[in-house]
């Protein structure tokens, strides 16, 4: 009795978690251990009935893959911009009327005028203002690009 393993050890042997070689001879000689071993074996066998062979539906992995597919944030932004532009045109088709009627030369002239005005304004303003403005634009762009990248990942 002194050398008898405890029930936890017998259980570990039955579960294949411990090597029971050293106890085989003891088990053959000890009726108390035989009784205990059988009792534990019965409990282990009964609990083994908890196993079920049920399995997941065959399309489970496919359905899950569809849910985890990356969100196309960049594409969605472009589509949204296109839709907004289209809706503006639909609500007021004449909005670009002037721009389309002035002709190509006038359009180029207008663009050149705008660029010249911007250069003149820049020359009048303090360089500190321009640097600040450029820094703000750059920061905004970085934030926007980072957000888009994170959403796509």
């Amino acid at each position, binding site marked *: 009795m002194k050398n008898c393993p405890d029930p*936890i050890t017998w*259980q*570990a042997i039955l579960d294949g978690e411990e090597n029971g070689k050293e106890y085989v001879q003891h088990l053959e000689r000890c009726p108390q251990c035989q009784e205990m071993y059988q009792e534990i074996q019965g409990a282990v066998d009964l609990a083994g009935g*908890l196993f079920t062979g*049920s*399995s997941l539906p065959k399309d*489970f992995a496919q359905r*899950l893959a569809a849910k*985890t597919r*990356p969100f196309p944030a960049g594409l969605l932004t472009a589509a949204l911009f296109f839709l907004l532009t289209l809706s503006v045109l639909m609500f007021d088709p004449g909005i670009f009327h002037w721009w389309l009627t002035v002709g190509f030369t006038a359009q180029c002239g207008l663009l050149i005028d705008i660029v010249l005005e911007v250069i003149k304004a820049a020359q009048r303003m303090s360089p500190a203002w321009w640097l600040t403005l450029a820094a703000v634009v750059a920061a905004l762009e970085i934030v926007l690009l980072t957000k888009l990248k994170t959403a796509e990942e």
Partner: protein
Amino acid sequence: MPQDSQKLLQQMIQEYGDRVFRLALRYTRDHFQAEDIAQETFLRAFTHLESYQRDKPAGPWLFTIAVNLCRNQFRGRRETPVPEIREPSKDPGPELQYLEKERDQELMQALSHLPEMYRLPLLLKHVSELSYGEICEVLDWELSLVKNRLYRGRIMLKQAYESREEAVK
């Protein structure tokens, strides 16, 4: 990187999907709830892939998520036995099938009388087929505690099952 994650997820489902589902099925005893839990387990795993140590097997990590989801499902709710919808057995005899089902229901009823601290290690051992070490990781228990509760749980299950059988006789 996203493609790697997708591939890893598919591998995890292939390796552990059924075992996670079976655990949830035995815990909830409801096929649809079990499928939801399995799905949520893998979705959470996917969104927290950065916390998974890739040099280790994913099993214990996934079962930890599944066990927490199972517990949350029943938290604050009184447990009511729900009949489990089982897949039809592949055994040919209808009588044998009936007896098998009866035995299974009796066993599940006996299990439902056990406190959760004994029920969970039993399910992880016999349904999810985890080793002692893996059960330790999932439940965050010491090895001696796992062994002890597994032993007591089995004895209690046997006693509860036998007393139910005697009551039926």
